[in-house]
């Protein structure tokens, strides 16, 4: 597990107050919403804010499909890496 992947998993667990869940319990390609980890629409809002704050990046509000980055830990890690490279 890369450092970034681990950090993102821990951020999800902490930000959302998920009990009984450790980084190892979240697969990097597991869907975060819906049937996967079962996060809801408010979690999506919370996570959007937490990711921007934690990694000092900004989600481009005018880009289409920004929410695709939030599909899984993997896609979030790719998004954070790419955003940092630009910054």
């Amino acid at each position, binding site marked *: 597990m890369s450092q970034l992947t681990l950090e993102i998993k821990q951020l999800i667990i902490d930000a959302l107050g998920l009990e009984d869940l450790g980084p190892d319990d979240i697969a990097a390609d597991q869907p975060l919403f819906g049937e996967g980890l079962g996060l*809801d629409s408010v979690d999506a809002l919370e996570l959007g804010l937490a990711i921007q704050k934690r990694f000092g990046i900004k989600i481009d509000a005018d880009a289409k499909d920004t929410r695709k980055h939030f599909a899984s830990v993997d896609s979030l890690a790719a998004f954070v890496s790419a955003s940092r490279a630009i910054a």
Partner: protein
Amino acid sequence: MSWIALCELLTSGESRQVTDAPALLLGQVQQQALHLAGGLQRRNVRSLAVHLEDAAQLAIALLGAWRAGARVLLPADLQPANRERLDAQAELWLTDQPGDHSLMDLLGEPLSAAELDPQLLGLTLCTSGSSGQPKLIDKRLAQLAREIETLEALWGADLGAASVIGSVATQHIYGLLFRVLWPLCAGRPMLRRPLPFAEDMQRASREQPAFCWVASPALLKRMGDNLDWPALRQVRRVFSSGGPLPAEAAQLLRERLGQWPTEIYGSSETGGIAWRQGGELWQPLPGVELGQDEQGALRVASPWLASGHVEQTADGAELHADGRFALRGRLDRIVKLEEKRISLPMLESALAEHAYVSEARLGVIQDQRAYLGALVALSEAGIFALRNQGRRAVTQTLRQHLNDHCEALALPRRWRLLHQLPGNAQGKLPQAELDALLLAPRPREPERLQQQWQDDHWQIELRVPLDLAHFSGHFPCTPVLPGVVQIEWAMNLARELIDDLPPRFGGMEVLKFQQLARPGDHLKLSLRFDHARGKLYFAYHNAGKPCSSGRILLGARP
């Protein structure tokens, strides 16, 4: 652009756009509604449940059903348990889901255009009742018409031709009035779909020459600084309803947008009651008359309640001399999570139906966001599952079970598992006590059942708590009491029961672990301190069999 009264929407000859993407004119809405009315009449449908994401389709469904004299039920969600309960009331389901009817399926030979009957009982809203049963609230068309006429009188001039962009669903009274019926009558373009993310609201706003937002605190209190706030200042008005917006969030919006959000306080039962723009106090909507019962809960009379009806709410309030008021929280066991109304008794009885549960109580936990916590007394089957599959398997199973009864948002995130629920002298568990139990960390100490001094040692009867904090880290799928915790418990109990115990830990001797101890096990611990040798003897028995034993060396400080 002129106002068309709700009951004249099918007969007006005015040409105007109802929505874009794809575009739809009022004439097309009327045509489709009349085809639907014909189809419903041919099938002799008197009532139908409607759950549609597209606001324009919902407009067609409502007008069509009303023209056919049918009643529309609007369920808050399509959870299986909810559907089952409403099935008796609805002759058919018109939804976006496969297996249900779609608008296209139901079209028939059109009825003629005609004015709608203002006395038609055309709408039934479904919400959570405090008894645990869903509550059905009927509205006549005249009630809906009067409410949107009041909204237009208050804010119509400001809004002008603003497009209506919403983040909320149209299944609730707020979304239905603000995103569908009011724009339809006023001739303001409505966006078809709800946009739950601020980024999408921003993109949609940029495409409109003028716009307003119909949003909720869930979104408005979570808007980031990645948005183009200077551009968004164009917004004509920001409506928020479903629950009060925290003062800091309202203040921040004011700084970013140059205007206070317009908050509406209301309920499914009453429709709109009051509004505010900044500050704590609410201003009653024109025509609304307020009173209070002896507990201080608001009583509401308004032009859009059934005539002569006075609705008693469960919202505590403080009325001021100038007619404004402050809200002081609900007085029953309905809670709101992110504007979703949730009946705790309903979820508690749903939980108790599961084989793992003998009794359950729920409370709200305020963390980063508010969520539910569950205090659960496990049945024998539940304890068996906990011992053999672990805590996470049990809580996941219970969450899965509840998933049929509520939206994901209401699934408890914190669980406290017990043998039985505590109660006060009246056998009740007051909500404050329940909330405190949910907030407390999971136990780290044993439950002490009995202790006595016998011959030369202490005999202590213990029970291993079902929910011991240590279980999560140690073999989470088959929880066992770690040896190091057994030693710690022996040491702590010895310090409490035996005087003059030397303070310094000097090591362990002849440690033996022979038998596992698991959640819920009854253990017997014997403790004896040999002063001469400075050794604390401990031995645990589990169901008569030796479980673990050893000697702890204790000495004076060096």
